[in-house]
């Protein structure tokens, strides 16, 4: 097991957002976490790489406990893709991707840029390497941010609603990049409502509600025959919103 999330609780003051969430991810596996908003999905992802410190519970990557002491080292192995991209605003696409390898992996500038170029090609952004974030569309920015994640050669990539800040016509390019990664065997944990992506690329869907994991299973089962009423209701809701592709 590559990623082992054990009994994560997270409370903000009196409000408990996560009430004991456990989850595992095998190498090369892709899991999609779904559920109503305010359910703690993003908080869970942020607790895994400790962008938010969990109130209790442990996360192990490849058997190593992730804690404050080793966090910077562990984060290099757990990439994170943000909902709103968060590309470094003062750098062009190439240098955004080269930053990590250069500053953290000790690569020389030329080597780092070479690696960045490879990753940008992988997400289809090789023609925009000189562009700055403000000159790119949301979908393009998100693809660059995925390349930035890949350039760290992480063990696993966490995606926090990678398409929900995008205009509908731009989600496709990001989803197809993610599908390719899944089929290449990149290990991914994805918070997303893209059912089409989940169905085609995920090994399992994890359904969360109210701070708990309600149900988990293969996409075909979850989508066509959810056991839990709440899962069914949620799927009907997002289907009604026309998000099913």
């Amino acid at each position, binding site marked *: 097991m590559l990623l082992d999330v054990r009994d994560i609780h997270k409370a903000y003051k009196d409000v408990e957002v996560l009430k004991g969430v456990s989850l595992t991810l095998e190498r090369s596996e892709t899991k999609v976490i779904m559920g109503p908003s305010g359910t703690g999905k993003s908080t869970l992802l942020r607790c895994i*790489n400790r*962008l938010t410190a969990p109130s209790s519970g442990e996360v192990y990557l490849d058997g190593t406990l992730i804690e404050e002491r080793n966090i*910077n*080292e*562990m*984060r*290099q192995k757990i*990439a*994170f893709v*943000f909902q*709103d*991209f*968060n*590309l*470094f*605003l*003062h750098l*062009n696409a190439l240098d955004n991707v080269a*930053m*990590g390898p250069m*500053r*953290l992996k000790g690569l020389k500038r030329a080597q780092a840029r070479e690696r960045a170029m490879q990753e940008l090609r992988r997400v289809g952004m090789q023609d925009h390497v000189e*562009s*700055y*974030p*403000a*000159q790119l569309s949301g979908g393009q920015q998100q693809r660059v*941010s995925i390349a*930035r*994640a890949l350039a*760290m050669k992480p063990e696993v990539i966490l995606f926090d609603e990678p398409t929900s800040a995008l205009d509908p016509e731009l989600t496709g390019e990001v989803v197809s990049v993610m599908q390719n990664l899944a089929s290449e065997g990149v290990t991914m944990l994805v918070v997303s409502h893209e059912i089409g992506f989940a169905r085609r690329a995920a090994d399992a869907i994890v359904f969360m509600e109210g701070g708990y994991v309600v149900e988990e299973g293969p996409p075909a089962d979850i989508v066509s025959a959810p056991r839990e009423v709440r899962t069914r209701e949620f799927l009907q809701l997002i289907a009604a919103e026309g998000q099913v592709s």
Partner: protein
Amino acid sequence: MEFLAFAREHLPTILAALPVTLGMWVLAIIIGAGLGLLLATGRLYGGRITYALSTTYIEVFRGTPMLVQMFFIYLGLPEIGIVFDPFTAAVIAIGLNSAAYQAEYFRGAVRSIPQGQMAAARAIGMTRMQALRNVLLPQALRRVIPQWSNEAILELKYTSIAYAIGVSEMTSRAEQIGYKTFHFFEVFLLLAIVYVVLTGVVAQILHVIEQKTSIPGVNR
């Protein structure tokens, strides 16, 4: 025409002190920027004590007149055995004073950077200091240039206060010329023109820097 003749005769005397004025200015700016960055970092990311120390420093130096600070350093400190020559005392006073203001400009600029920038830097495994150096500061320094230009120009003018502790800079030269010729009107007009030209050049240079370093696609 009379003024031009006056200017031609006395401008060289004033400009002879230009290196002193510019020297004070450049050194004070360097001290101010370096210390200002440290103070800003202390207020932004320091523990309680660092925060308190930085804040106190800033409040004290912003809350007292530059002239008082300069007198304190040049005339006050010797009483406890710390002696500076006038030039050094002036550089220190202007530098320390400017640090308090520059710290607040830096801090404001860093705080104006979207939160996600820090999060993204931390998420690839940078320490807070690495994130500050590689991601936040490069953006904050660009944003701070307009305010920083004002500060640089203020400091250039503040160098004239060093006259009060006997630094032979442009203003003191002008005053001497005034007493020698009794053409106070002309000499201070001339001096004012010199300062306007200097500050204009500085403003222009910083404006060019601002444009050269602007991030493509981002409107200020």
